[in-house]
């Protein structure tokens, strides 16, 4: 891309690392305030039960206890709100039962909070919580979304018939799709589960709230991805405290992955109680609590059919999904299986007829919300499993069948964007390009020979492809609003030039591992021609910056970076006026490059630092110009961005045990222009590891009583260092045509592409050995693969 001072496109080492490698990071739990007190929550051990009685009598007399709050104490307070509205097909608003801060009547999932104890120390709070006596009357439980809609299923909420939160449809009419299917020479159909995932950021959720009586102001430190959003939701929708009297700070945050995007009841409770107790209150989740109270992800039960003509060209796609929303709606909950899922059903293909039908369902399980990728991995998994399986069933090559169906390349400037059947307008793409690159890295020409050789040697070798697209850069506000978002999704970027020419940048995005302090500084250094050392990036404090929407949906650079660029442009424009005045020239004759304002065609120039000083010491200054050099901009994108790519997995399956060994993993990602290749590569690595995690290792296992049976790090299996190979990654660059940086976003790409590639590879390996298995439920443990092989002995 065009880079002005060579700072863009360089793998600059991260400026934030020094504090992290020396143990000087400041995460929420590291903050201990004067007169600190601690909260502990009494949580339901049952998935569904009526609360008969809560007795706090013995607990309140325990040493150090300052207060105990139960559901009755907060009945008058609003519940935690949902940020997106999805309507029923008939236009009715989705069912949105109250998600109370503490439950008074009945608990609806294991981990539902019943009481909060505040005490002088963590141990005292925990001891007292054990003395809170709760009498429960157990009720029947429903866990599975497809079961929950059946007549006679237990009712999670009295006023939500059949547990249906919404039913929703997108694309062509069912009749059109049915008609197209009739013409199909082959229909590949798959009934499958996209299992529930737990984000498991290694930093547990942590909050610390205090009330400043003198100024009547609340402060909340929170391990969140979006401090301003938390302030807005908490102050305006839950507690009814004026927003200017609430400060929300998201300090260093140890990983988010979507689950720290939600506004949680504990945030509001601590803030509310800090005023009543008159002392700061801190709560940090124990890991076992995180497992039952952090928002979880995925959990779809789906039937999908893809119709092809005899050459392998896709004619139609039909999808029916039951999406588990959990017991209540999370902040983004209903948007994930609809607007971030149904809208991606075009994939990279020219499928002419698509119908996707989604039913959102309440169950007696923990809330389901965004988890890295959020909706887009589920859509990609569906499409890429279907197309690879179709190739196997039709005896075609999985690469060939994709080439046949790809949307041809378009740059979005000289050629128009691509209008899908499911509402989106793709910005720019070269889909053949990433697959070609991937095939060449793999050495595909030789692969099938190696596979046959392996079969002869009694081994099962397989390759799996996934060519994905995602919609990122959330989001054009008008489009988001039309899709049911209850907020705009623009971003704020402020450039404050200090009198000495140093620059402080305020962004409304929030970094929790993404390295914004480095990438954003590179953008600024490049545009202003000043050293990175002269730039500081500030994020995560609602009192420091005008507003912000936070970080999720791979939006920060594309949207937040663009807002900063807008402010830089304003700084340069004003700087030209100041410089022109000093140099006795016309502003129109000034140009800015390499940190200097120069009169065009002359050697008369003035440095950026001198202009900054003049702006703050305006002795020689244009009469009609305000002093100061400080601009705030809001950038509202005109479209989503559409990163895409090709992931390829090579696996070997042990014939005797079903154990899957991941031999190679190739990722070719096109995330638009890249500011810092090192950081982008790191994002891809991490995403790929999580995607592989879903395919091979991870998954929440609820039993029929609604108990999460793998609710610890001992039992929930995440990839470790020796489970993974070295990933082979590269990029293709198709710039985003509609934002000034040309960036598309890289945070979720890995997770979206990786999962189906791995599963397809295992299926391919099994077919190579004559096991014509259509599906194995993820994660593909040895046992499940072995059983699938046994069931398909030919």
């Amino acid at each position: 891309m065009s880079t002005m001072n060579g700072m863009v496109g360089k793998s600059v080492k991260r400026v934030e690392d020094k504090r992290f490698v020396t143990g000087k990071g400041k995460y929420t739990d590291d903050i201990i305030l004067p007169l600190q007190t601690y909260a502990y929550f009494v949580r339901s051990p049952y998935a569904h039960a009526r609360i008969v009685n809560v007795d706090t009598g013995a607990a309140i007399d325990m040493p150090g206890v300052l207060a105990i709050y139960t559901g009755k104490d907060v009945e008058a307070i609003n519940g935690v709100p949902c940020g997106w509205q999805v309507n029923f097909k008939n236009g009715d608003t989705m069912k949105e039962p109250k998600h109370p801060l503490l439950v008074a009547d009945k608990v609806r999932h294991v981990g539902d909070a019943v009481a909060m104890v505040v005490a002088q120390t963590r141990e005292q709070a925990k001891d007292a919580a054990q003395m809170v006596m709760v009498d429960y009357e157990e009720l029947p439980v429903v866990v599975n979304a497809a079961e929950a809609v059946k007549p006679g299923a237990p009712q999670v909420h009295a006023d939500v018939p059949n547990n249906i939160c919404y039913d929703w449809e997108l694309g062509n009419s069912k009749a059109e799709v049915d008609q197209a299917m009739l013409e199909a020479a082959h229909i590949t159909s798959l009934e499958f589960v996209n299992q529930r995932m737990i984000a498991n950021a290694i930093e547990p959720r942590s909050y610390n709230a205090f009330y400043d009586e003198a100024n009547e102001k609340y402060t909340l430190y929170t391990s969140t991805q979006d401090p301003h959003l938390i302030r807005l939701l908490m102050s305006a929708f839950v507690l009814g405290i004026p927003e200017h009297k609430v400060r929300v700070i998201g300090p260093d945050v140890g990983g988010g992955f979507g689950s720290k995007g939600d506004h949680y009841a504990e945030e509001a409770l601590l803030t509310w109680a800090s005023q009543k107790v008159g002392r700061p209150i801190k709560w940090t989740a124990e890991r076992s609590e995180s497992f039952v109270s952090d928002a979880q992800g995925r959990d779809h039960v789906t039937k999908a059919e893809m119709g092809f003509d005899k050459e392998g060209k896709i004619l139609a796609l039909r999808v029916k999904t039951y999406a588990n929303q959990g017991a209540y709606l999370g902040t983004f909950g209903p948007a994930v299986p609809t607007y971030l899922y149904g809208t991606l059903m075009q994939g990279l293909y020219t499928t002419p007829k698509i119908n996707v039908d989604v039913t959102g369902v309440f169950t007696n399980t923990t809330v389901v919300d965004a988890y890295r990728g959020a909706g887009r991995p589920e859509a990609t998994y569906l499409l890429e499993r279907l197309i690879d399986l179709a190739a196997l069933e039709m005896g075609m090559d999985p690469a060939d069948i994709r080439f046949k169906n790809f949307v041809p390349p378009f740059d979005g400037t000289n050629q128009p964007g691509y209008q899908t059947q499911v509402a989106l307008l793709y910005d720019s793409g070269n889909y053949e390009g990433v697959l070609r690159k991937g095939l060449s890295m793999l050495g595909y020409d030789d692969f099938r020979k190696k596979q046959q050789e392996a079969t002869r040697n009694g081994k099962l070798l397989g390759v799996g492809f996934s060519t994905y697209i995602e919609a990122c850069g959330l989001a054009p506000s008008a489009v988001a609003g039309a899709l049911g978002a209850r907020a705009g999704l623009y971003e704020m970027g402020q450039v404050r030039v200090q009198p000495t020419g140093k620059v402080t940048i305020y962004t409304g995005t929030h970094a929790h591992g993404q390295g914004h302090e480095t990438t954003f500084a590179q953008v600024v250094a490049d545009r202003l021609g000043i050293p990175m050392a002269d730039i500081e990036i500030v994020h995560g404090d609602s009192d420091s910056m005008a507003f912000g929407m936070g970080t999720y949906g791979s939006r920060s650079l594309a949207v937040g970076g663009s807002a900063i660029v807008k402010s830089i442009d304003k700084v340069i424009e004003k700087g030209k006026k100041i410089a022109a005045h000093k140099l006795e020239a016309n502003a129109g004759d000034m140009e800015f490059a390499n940190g200097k304002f120069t009169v065009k065609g002359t050697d008369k120039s003035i440095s950026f630092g001198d202009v900054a000083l003049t702006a703050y010491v305006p002795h020689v200054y244009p009469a009609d110009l305000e002093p100061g050099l400080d601009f705030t901009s809001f950038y509202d994108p005109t479209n989503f961005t559409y990163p895409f790519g090709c992931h390829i997995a090579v696996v070997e399956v042990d014939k005797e045990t079903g154990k899957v060994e991941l031999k190679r993993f190739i990722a070719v990602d096109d995330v638009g222009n890249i500011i810092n290749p090192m950081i982008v590569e790191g994002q891809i690595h991490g995403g790929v590891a999580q995607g592989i995690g879903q395919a091979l290792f991870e998954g929440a296992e609820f039993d029929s009583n609604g108990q999460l049976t793998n609710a610890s790090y001992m039992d929930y299996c995440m990839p470790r260092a020796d489970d993974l190979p070295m990933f082979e990654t590269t990029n293709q660059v198709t710039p985003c045509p509609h934002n000034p940086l040309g960036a598309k976003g890289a945070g979720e790409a890995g997770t979206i592409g990786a999962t189906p590639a791995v599963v397809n590879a295992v299926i391919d390996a099994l077919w190579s050995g004559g096991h014509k298995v259509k599906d194995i439920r993820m994660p593909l443990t040895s046992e499940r693969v072995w059983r699938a092989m046994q069931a398909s002995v030919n």
Partner: protein
Amino acid sequence: MQIRVKVNGVDYTHDVEPRLLLVHYLRDVLRLTGTHIGCDTSICGACTVQVDGNATKSCTLFAVQADGCEITTVEGLSTNGELHALQEGFKEMHGLQCGFCTPGILMTMDEYLKINPNPTEEEIRHGLKGHLCRCTGYQNIVKSVQYAANKLKKEEVPV
């Protein structure tokens, strides 16, 4: 109960509750918050420190069990303001993202490189088995450890 410990070269004497975990002692009493807590079951490794030179998950030890011991935390890894080779390696090779698991990994790998100064990729991956990182996919952690191993070897070349 009274305990005496030496942490990062400084002697401390404190009266502690017998049930106080070492990690809580380090974080809450000494305010050395570089050591983190990621799970309650000694699985994630974020709380790893060195007790008498041995990498130890400080959530599995009571403070009283460390009585009389010499403890090094991540805050004690660098000397005279110079980054340790591992710290430098993690910065150079992008071995961290959110940074939460990093201190524990540094403390384990510091001991590991003393035992095995010349590890292969596979050995490093095996050495990292006691740690969970959710951000990096481990690839750049492996490279960071390799960087440090190479740097330490060069430093050891006798004059």
